[in-house]
């Protein structure tokens, strides 16, 4: 059993509220949920939608076809009426949409009128809509009532009650007027919906870096209340639990959510969040904070990151740990501010002048985002290097269900020398040569030892020098010694599906979910596996898992990327020499839908058959 509910309308009409409440409801009811959003760069008007897919089995992507479309305006009807499943229904309020459709395929519900009648408040129309969906699906209202109570309790009992009656009225109306609705989540899945829990594909998910991928392993329908998390909150929680104490940034979609999350947390926890005057200041502040002794982070999108590049090299030269969150969006320049792309990988891999080690982690799901954020903080501080969390608008805005997050799964070790440690130190040199290349990092002011560092080439003390010998030793220390150690920390890519696959679908970052689901689907009839990279730089070695062997043994290898030039494939060739047999690229600013990817993979298959 699975359904997709899409809510469409203009910015400002509240479709985000409807969508997110529905998603939460299904998650609390124990379903697997996957949501994604599509919106324009404007505050009011335009056309946006919020899509909620839920099922009693593992899902990790969106589909193109819709079972229930909640249309808040005419454009929504026009744009999406061709995307309905057979038996699907477009739900709308003729008073808002100012048009009458149907009756086939449409369900008229006077949201506004019901809101006025039951709560005397137009603003309740979204609650009516949510109630109506519950009614159509034959779901009980208890969970919704709880949710409404939680949400509105701060506004007083009256508002809660108004909302609950509005929801009830919506539900009642729907149950009454949708007698022939095919949607019933209590009954067997409707025709066309697939259940691939019994998928034959052997999973070697345990090779995955970021904890085992529990969010897709449980498939018992409506088993228990689930966590619902998007990529933004996942990064925020990861940073918080990693001990991030300073976050400086300049607003930029799709990274602002992380800043707002941290700002909100600063109301309760010891955490300073400062909006900088520009991105240059943002990264320099994060570096200053780290020098002063706390874990720090900044976040931005590609255009803002462009302004941080000099700061990156400053972090590298002064060996100051810093974590940088980059949310990709279609570019170059301003591009599509609210849409998605994987166009910044090579940029991050090579940006800035000079040579130094860096870490790039590109999570594929909120769960990976949480644990990899933890890993970014740990590696940044352990090796005193910059570490990136590379996300994108798609991951930032998609919600996944998961069973839970384990704070203990995030390592926390304070690598800095504090007052106590420094007492024992006789002479302190910020950039002392060491076997590992990692020098002791003291908190300035915590002792009489001076902490000196410089963006110029410097000696062990941190003072400016110009001689060739010191330069050679510093490059050795900063780069050549650290690099192999850092590479050993990187987990191999995840092979999901057949262990000896004839076909390997490779992907990285946010394409994880959709490729996994596609591979599971194709795995029913093909010998296929997904190879997903979430830890990208230093590029994973093959000691722990010889993924190159798997690729070379495969008959068909396809690299799926949300960009035009196959950036990951370029990096793969540069690092390993491996060349993919085929590529699937999408660069229109939209993420891959499951069915669309399946089509593309079939096409590629036929071309190579």
């Amino acid at each position: 059993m699975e359904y997709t509910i899409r809510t469409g309308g203009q910015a400002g009409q509240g479709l985000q509220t409807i969508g997110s409440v529905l998603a939460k409801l299904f998650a609390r009811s124990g379903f697997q949920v996957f949501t994604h959003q599509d919106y324009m760069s404007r505050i009011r008007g335009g056309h946006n939608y919020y899509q909620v897919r839920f099922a009693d089995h593992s899902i990790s992507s969106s589909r193109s076809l819709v079972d229930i479309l909640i249309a808040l305006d005419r454009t929504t009807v026009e744009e999406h009426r061709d995307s309905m499943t057979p038996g699907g229904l477009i739900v709308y309020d003729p008073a808002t949409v100012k048009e009458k459709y149907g009756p086939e395929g449409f369900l008229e519900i006077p949201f506004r009128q019901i809101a006025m009648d039951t709560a005397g408040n137009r603003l309740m129309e979204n609650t009516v809509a949510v109630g109506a969906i519950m009614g159509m699906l034959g779901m009980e209202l208890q969970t919704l009532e709880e949710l409404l109570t939680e949400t509105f309790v701060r506004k007083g009992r009256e508002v809660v009650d108004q909302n609950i009656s509005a929801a009830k009225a919506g539900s009642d109306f729907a149950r009454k007027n949708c007698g022939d609705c095919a949607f019933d989540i209590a009954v067997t899945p409707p025709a066309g919906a697939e259940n691939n829990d019994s998928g034959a594909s052997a999973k070697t998910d345990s090779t995955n870096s970021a904890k085992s991928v529990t969010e897709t392993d449980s498939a018992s329908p409506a088993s228990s209340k689930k966590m619902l998390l998007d990529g933004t909150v996942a990064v925020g929680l990861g940073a918080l639990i990693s001990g991030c104490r300073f976050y400086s940034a300049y607003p930029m979609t799709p990274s602002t959510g992380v800043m707002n999350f941290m700002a909100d947390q600063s109301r309760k926890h010891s955490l300073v969040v400062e909006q900088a005057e520009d991105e240059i200041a943002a990264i320099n502040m994060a570096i200053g904070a780290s020098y002063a002794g706390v874990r720090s982070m900044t976040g931005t999108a590609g255009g803002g990151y462009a302004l941080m590049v000099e700061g990156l090299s400053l972090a590298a030269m002064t060996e100051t740990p810093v974590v940088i969150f980059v949310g990709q969006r279609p570019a170059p320049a301003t591009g599509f501010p609210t849409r998605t792309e994987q166009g910044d990988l090579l940029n991050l891999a090579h940006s800035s002048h000079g040579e130094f080690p860096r870490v790039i982690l590109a999570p594929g799901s909120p769960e990976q985002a949480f644990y990899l954020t933890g890993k970014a903080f740990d590696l940044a501080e352990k090796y005193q290097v910059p570490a990136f969390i590379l996300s994108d608008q798609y991951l930032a805005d998609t919600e996944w269900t998961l069973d839970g997050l384990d704070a203990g799964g995030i390592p926390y070790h304070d690598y800095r020398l504090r007052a106590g440690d420094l007492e024992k130190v006789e002479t302190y040199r910020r950039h002392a040569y060491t076997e590992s290349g990692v020098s002791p990092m003291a908190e300035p002011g915590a002792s009489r030892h001076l902490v000196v560092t410089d963006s110029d080439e410097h000696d062990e003390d941190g003072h400016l020098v110009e001689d060739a010998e010191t330069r050679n030793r510093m490059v050795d220390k900063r780069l050549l010694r650290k690099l192999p150690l850092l590479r050993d920390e990187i987990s191999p890519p995840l092979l999901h599906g057949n262990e000896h696959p004839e076909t390997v679908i490779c992907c990285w970052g946010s394409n994880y979910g959709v490729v996994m689901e596609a591979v599971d689907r194709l795995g029913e009839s093909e010998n296929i596996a997904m190879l997903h990279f979430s830890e990208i730089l230093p590029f994973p070695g093959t000691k722990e898992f010889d993924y190159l062997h798997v690729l070379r043994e495969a008959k068909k290898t396809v690299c799926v990327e949300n960009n035009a030039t196959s950036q990951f494939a370029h990096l793969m060739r540069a690092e390993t020499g491996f060349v993919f047999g085929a590529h699937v690229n999408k660069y229109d600013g939209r993420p891959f839908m499951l069915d669309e990817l399946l089509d593309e993979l079939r096409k590629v298959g036929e071309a190579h058959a």
Partner: protein
Amino acid sequence: MPELEEFRGQNPAWCPGCGNLQILRTFKLAMVALGIEPHEITIVSGIGQAGKFPHYTRCNTFNGLHGRTLPVAQAIHLVNHEMRVLAVAGDGDCYGEGGNHFLHAMRRNLNITLFVHDNQVYGLTKGQASPTTSEGTVTGTQPFGVLYEPLNPMALAVAMDCSFVARGFSGNQEQLQKLMQAALEHKGFALLDILQNCPSYNKINTMQWYKERCYPVGPDHDPSDREAAFRVALEFGDRIPTGVIYRHPRHTLEEAMPEIANREPLVRQPFSQEDVAGETERYY
């Protein structure tokens, strides 16, 4: 109490006769006078001749990028508001490359100090015009002379309500030491623009030129009067006022920020994963 000797750093690589040498000497005297130990202060500097400053004394040092002293300095102070933070920049550094940070640092009003070694030229890169170079000055990059007005840091700072605005001169060590101490002791963001001769590249605004023009603002000047301060700030030509031009004591950012106001510095506030782990609960 620290001794002068404790502040001896590397040998300066500045030119003989450079005003920076006098600024350095005066700074060390100010430190001793204030009783600040080397480890109790962090100097953040940029790139330029002035940027080399912290290497020539002893202190915690973050010698960062050209133009980016203030973001680093502010963050250090936010993380450890018991650490004295001094940002040292050149006129190009601070008013050119770093102009935007300068504006917003004045707004934030953290309790930090900024020295601008204002030689009215780009020294390290060999003599191009800086934002404070006088109109008409010919350089290798400005063959027709600078064609527009210099930036007036004093007027700008008064307009931005900078909480302490002063001008010193490397050639007047006695006054300069007093100004340095006042700036370091001021609670809030303190700008001290220090006119500094550059014998190698600034052949116009020489030591002699400054000496003839610089005069201390008199006791009749009330630095708390913003309009009067603006009037004084506008003066730069045959006569150049030095001293404290404007002072507006008011709350600093660290006093307004609940995470750190009246609390231990952030860097010393304890952290444990358990304290924050519960934040995941909301997402069920």
